[in-house]
């Protein structure tokens, strides 16, 4: 096994990978941009190297810098995480040339799946069912519009090199088409250095169901069941769960086989995800394959008991996949809630800034993959996802109840997050019943009326009044300026002083 591995990523996923490295007694090497000097992955690593300024294009995305760090540190392999260079075939090739193991598929597979148009052709040949209307990249907005009119609105404009919803736009009618097309091209260029987009038919009530696959260098390939990622907003996943609440066992079996066929069609090696649209009639269409670890991989880990990052490392090291498809079993249910630094009450605007206090949930069957800490700053330059909360339960109902419990324990102060929004979503009948599709969240947001619990509001008002009073008491005591923050000890000791003289009070 490798003795040292470079993690070419940041935040929670870098830490998650380094945790497995530490469990395997492999040294971890972090890279960081200047504003990430304080970031948790730098603190967690055994070694850390600065690779440039804030802009990813000048730091995390610079292949030469990453390879220079690998050589300097003596790392034998590079784990790219997700995003950044994870689906960059030039990087995979450059690693190979430099004699450093790229922990992921061969560049051929990245290329084949990375261009969605190319991927579709390959999949068609392999007998994988496709969404109608898939076409090549188009440059001319008018040509694209003509095509869209031909297949009928709504259509979807997607970045050829894309992922994660960037450069992706749904268009419902002719009027907005050209503006959206250009916006998508601009976003795609910005995010991937490649402005190619294509247009496809938009399936109206689809579930986004994806299959995790693992393939070794010896031709063995298995799937680790599905994840339902249909709770989305602007093509950003919010909540993921496994099993999918609406999939039938026979559909699961079929989709699993197709996922393996898709992976085999590109000689896939490593951990990958085959994404499908699942229709209400249980028919399904190939969407794309992500040739890397997925954000939502932990829910698969929770129900299968398999550490996907460990298998990525073993496979990259040439080891054989000893897991057999027939031995794999889903136990219970798992749910993941992505914690974003954003404000759901203000159009989900990003909310970067200083986290003044954080307290993460814990206890039975609760897992937090976090990229932040009390006192850390969420930088404006990167993804707004600051952590993932994952829970497991004996069944779906228990998992959801546990997620609600865990969310109720989660404290993130200083910035705004979507924790309360998760609580709201989990409590809707649509989510509880499991029949939501990928269009549900935006529809829900339109119809949403936020009902405030009067009792809670009154209680919080009282809390604010008490907080104001304690501040005023502390100021009076210390003779501090009226803007001064009282020292914690003051109020605390205040209680102690008086507390000694208290008895059981009136309650008993």
């Amino acid at each position, binding site marked *: 096994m490798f003795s040292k591995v470079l993690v070419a990523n940041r935040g929670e996923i870098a830490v998650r990978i380094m945790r497995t490295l530490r469990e395997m007694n492999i040294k971890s090497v972090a890279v960081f941009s200047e504003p990430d000097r304080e970031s948790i992955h730098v603190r967690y690593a055994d070694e850390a190297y600065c690779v440039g300024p804030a802009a990813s294009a000048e730091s995390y995305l610079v292949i030469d810098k990453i390879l220079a760090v690998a050589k300097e540190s003596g790392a034998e392999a590079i784990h790219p995480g997700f995003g950044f260079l994870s689906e960059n075939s030039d990087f995979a090739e450059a690693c190979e040339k430099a004699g450093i193991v790229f922990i992921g598929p061969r560049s051929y597979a990245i290329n084949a799946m990375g261009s969605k148009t190319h991927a579709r052709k390959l999949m068609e040949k392999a007998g994988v069912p496709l969404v109608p209307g898939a076409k090549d990249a188009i440059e001319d907005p008018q040509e694209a519009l003509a095509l869209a009119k031909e297949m009928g609105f709504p259509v979807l404009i997607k970045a050829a090199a894309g992922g994660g919803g*960037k450069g992706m736009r749904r268009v419902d009618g002719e009027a907005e088409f050209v503006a959206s097309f250009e916006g998508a091209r601009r976003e795609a260029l910005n995010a991937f250095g490649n402005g190619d987009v294509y247009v496809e038919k938009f399936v109206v009530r689809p579930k986004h169901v994806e299959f995790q696959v693992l393939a070794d260098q010896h031709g063995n390939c298995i799937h680790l069941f599905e994840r339902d990622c249909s709770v989305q907003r602007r093509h950003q996943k919010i909540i993921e769960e496994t099993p999918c609440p609406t999939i039938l066992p026979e559909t699961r079996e079929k989709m699993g086989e197709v996922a393996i066929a898709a992976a085999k069609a590109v000689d896939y090696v490593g951990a990958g995800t085959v994404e499908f649209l699942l229709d209400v009639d249980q028919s399904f269409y190939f969407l794309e394959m992500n040739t890397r670890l997925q954000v939502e991989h932990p829910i698969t880990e929770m129900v299968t008991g398999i550490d996907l990052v460990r298998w990525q490392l073993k496979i990259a090291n040439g080891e054989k996949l000893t897991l057999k498809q027939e031995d794999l079993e889903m136990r219970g249910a798992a749910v993941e809630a992505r914690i974003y630094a954003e404000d759901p009450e203000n159009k989900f605007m990003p909310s970067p800034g200083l986290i*003044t*206090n954080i307290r993460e949930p814990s206890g039975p069957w609760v897992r937090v993959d976090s990229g932040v800490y009390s006192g850390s700053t969420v930088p404006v330059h990167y993804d707004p996802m600051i952590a993932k909360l994952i829970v497991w339960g004996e069944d779906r109902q228990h998992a959801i109840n546990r997620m609600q419990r865990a969310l109720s324990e989660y404290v993130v102060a200083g910035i705004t997050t979507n924790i*309360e929004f*998760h609580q709201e979503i989990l409590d809707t009948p649509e989510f509880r019943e499991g029949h939501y599709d990928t269009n549900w969240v935006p529809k829900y947001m339109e119809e949403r009326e936020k009902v405030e619990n009067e009792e809670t*509001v009154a209680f*919080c008002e009282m*809390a604010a009044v*008490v907080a104001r009073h304690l501040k005023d008491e502390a100021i009076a005591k210390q003779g501090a300026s009226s803007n001064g923050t009282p020292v914690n000890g003051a109020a605390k000791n205040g209680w102690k002083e008086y507390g000694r003289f208290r008895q059981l009070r009136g309650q008993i």
Partner: protein
Amino acid sequence: MPIYYVQHGEEEREWSVIRNGEGLLEVTDPEGVTHVVDALEPQPGRLHLLRGARSADLDVREQEGVFHVLWRGHDTEVNVLNERQRRMKAAGVGGNKEAGPDLLSPMAGKVVATPFAVGETVEEGQTIIIIEAMKMENDLKAHRSGKVTKIGVEVGQAVEIGDVLITVEDE
């Protein structure tokens, strides 16, 4: 007895608090009901209350005079002023700014596009500026209808929360 004023929508609600001989707070709500409250700050920024037996563990932080109260994931903003602060506000010191013609940036990020030029007319709700933050483009809508009189930023420029982006005045 210290009085506190809570702004709730249009309404101003009056609370009062006094520490009794046992070291507990007697909090009187706007309806005149007095609650005995045992308040503790177990950690900086945290507040634990026992109102009678009811236990609530909260995160309470003040940001620009507004208290953000977090309770089991729920986030409530409360405007509370003590008597001195209320007098100062009445005298116009530190009061809230009137919503003016300036569109202020609600986020830190980078300006991607400003579709309107100075002199052009915008309708409230039209996209007036696009700001990229955290890898996503965010369309900011015009906060009012009128004529663009000033564009305070350039495409590519980094902006911070509260920066004046664009000024829209009545035609």
